[in-house]
């Protein structure tokens, strides 16, 4: 169905969909050409070996029209952590909704705006970074997103700005019609020694089979710290491909958390380039799926400069006939001496039909490094279950408690209490009847 997208692009471009600065239309054109050449990846592609995107490729998705349903603030209540004071941008079916957003009185040094406004008011910043971090040469989904992107969030942190309140970006799908596609495109630039937390939430109001193809580009300048929390809670019929691309300068610290419980088929990439001495990345994630859900995470940490570190913990809880994939690559360039890398992926299978493919990969071209990795797949520990029962705890309760404990372990790594508490609460609700 590659041709459908190419045709749609012609219409999109002819209708002025290519709004933005002069450098953008040629880039969109080369992106759609690249997509046309690449086509959707097949399972012969090593990066997609365990995930077939045929359900996406075989379907004709239409660019979502303005939402047919009026969305009001109370619709979003389940997704806002009860924190109306957080700077929030809301996108409904891919379109910025000013009425539901609140990013007016921001702390000093913080700019949060939608992409359309940023074309006008932050054009230099966009020209400098947008599309520079997430390359589309080898990525059909990023190529599509680049061709069609029209809305998303731009967050800029000035040098030394330390913002304590999280910034929440909510991408809500109204889910009235099937087969709509949105292309959120986000850019976060954290200048020298700045610090902030950005949450990206992908949530549904209905249960339609829509498709979210999102790309986020994150730039951490020298000494910056960025917490990036991605919450993929799409409808259980939806498709989600989210690409988080990060570039880091000296002494910066990226803390990424990917929480995925939604979608029929989802893929999240978190790729970071440790391109300055002393910088590091903490990449954590938790995926919990059931039924026929398929959830795939691919992480890549490129240690480019010496003395960089990475810490990675991804946990999965798979029930029903669900299928999980974790592919974690740590690539240490020859120059990156004294790299300190740790990667761990632990999976808990709650049913005989659930399946996990875990593929940790270490590729090391420097000779003085300390890197470890490991993956585990297991079931609930029978001995621990007996221990709990022998203390009077009923069997179901013991199972719930052990499952929750397995998952909560990684949530504890989240720095912001409000986010941690909410995710713990959601996880607890999931496993306690």
């Amino acid at each position, binding site marked *: 169905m590659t041709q459908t997208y190419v045709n749609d692009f012609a219409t999109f471009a002819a209708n002025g969909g290519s709004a933005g600065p002069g450098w953008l239309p040629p880039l969109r054109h080369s992106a759609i050409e690249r997509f046309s050449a690449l086509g959707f990846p097949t399972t012969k592609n090593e990066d997609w070996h365990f995930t077939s995107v045929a359900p996406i490729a075989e379907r004709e998705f239409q660019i979502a029209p303005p939402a047919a349903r009026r969305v009001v603030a109370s619709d979003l209540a389940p997704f806002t952590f009860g924190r109306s004071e957080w700077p929030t941008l809301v996108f409904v079916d891919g379109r910025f909704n000013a009425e539901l957003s609140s990013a007016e009185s921001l702390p000093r040094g913080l700019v949060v705006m939608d992409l359309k406004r940023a074309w006008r008011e932050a054009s230099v910043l966009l020209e400098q970074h947008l599309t520079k971090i997430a390359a589309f040469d080898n990525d059909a989904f990023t190529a599509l997103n680049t061709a069609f992107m029209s809305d998303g969030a731009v967050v800029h942190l000035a040098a030394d700005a330390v913002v304590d309140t999280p910034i929440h970006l909510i991408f809500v799908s109204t889910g009235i019609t099937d087969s709509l596609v949105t292309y959120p495109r986000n850019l976060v630039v954290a200048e020298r020694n700045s610090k902030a937390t950005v949450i990206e939430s992908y949530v549904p109001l209905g249960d339609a089979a829509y498709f979210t193809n999102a790309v986020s580009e994150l730039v951490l300048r020298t000494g910056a710290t960025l917490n990036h929390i991605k919450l993929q809670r799409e409808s259980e019929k939806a498709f989600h491909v989210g690409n988080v691309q990060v570039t880091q300068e000296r002494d910066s610290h990226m803390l990424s958390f990917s929480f995925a419980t939604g979608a029929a088929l989802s893929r999240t990439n978190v790729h970071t380039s440790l391109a300055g001495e002393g910088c590091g990345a903490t990449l954590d994630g938790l995926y919990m799926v059931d039924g026929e859900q398929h959830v795939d995470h691919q992480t890549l940490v490129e240690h480019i400069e010496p003395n960089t570190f990475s810490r990675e913990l991804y946990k999965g809880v798979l029930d029903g006939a669900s299928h999980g994939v974790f592919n974690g690559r740590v690539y240490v360039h020859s120059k990156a001496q004294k790299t300190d890398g740790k990667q761990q992926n632990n999976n808990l299978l709650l049913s005989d039909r659930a399946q996990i493919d875990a593929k940790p990969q270490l590729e090391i071209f420097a000779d003085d490094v300390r890197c470890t990795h490991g993956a585990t797949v297991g079931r609930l520990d*029978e001995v*621990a279950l007996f221990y*709990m*029962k*022998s*203390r*009077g*705890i009923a069997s179901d309760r*013991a199972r719930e*408690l052990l499952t929750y404990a397995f998952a909560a372990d990684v949530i504890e790594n989240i720095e912001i209490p409000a986010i941690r508490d909410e995710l713990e609460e959601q996880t607890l609700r999931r496993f306690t009847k």
Partner: protein
Amino acid sequence: MLTIQDLHARVAGTEGREILKGIDLTVNAGEVHAVMGPNGSGKSTLAQVLAGNPAYEVTGGSAVLDGQDLLEMDPEVRAQAGVFMAFQYPVEIPGVSNAYFLRTAYNEIRKSKGLPEADPLEFLDIMEEQLALVDMDPGMLNRSVNAGFSGGEKKRNEILQMAVLRPRLAILDETDSGLDIDALRIVAEGVNKLKRPDSATIVVTHYQRLLNYIVPDFVHVLSAGRIVKSGGKELALELEAKGYEWVDQKEEALA
């Protein structure tokens, strides 16, 4: 209180030979019974079978607690009925705090008796009372159950659980193994203080050492899945002096 008759058991799911080959034992309220025996005699299996470990399968006989068939009950029901086994190897449960674990257990047992549950603050008071008993730091309550605890800490944690849950029948499965003399003393004193006229204790041990601190009313010697000798506390001393070969030889002589 507890009557065991002709109890047979083996490892579950195997057609293998029986580990318990006919145990008879009666325990009354207020009594302390020591079950001793060499490795492989079945003494730990007896403890596990009474607690309901699904790793073992009962192949014959009965165990009745207060008129109820113990062997028919799930492990959690046994605990609710007042059975508590202190594990030889307490299990680590990362991610579940000691306080939460113990409060859940406490409340499940309360619930089964139709009693109101304790909220976290009430429960904290209950626990703090018992912490001193086993000389445990309150900080341990917020740590994951047994995770990263030393051997001694784990055993003290077992006794803390026992103190909070107040069982009617406490079974100590080789609680003395891996303990230095100081830890042993703390654990034993805890057990002694928890003794009540309406409760009973079964101490399973390889060595006589623990029995210097927890003085038994009866000592039973297990060999090859049977109780081959029973007596008073002096039997433990005799065993210590003569070794297990002594009872084994007597066994053979009888056979």
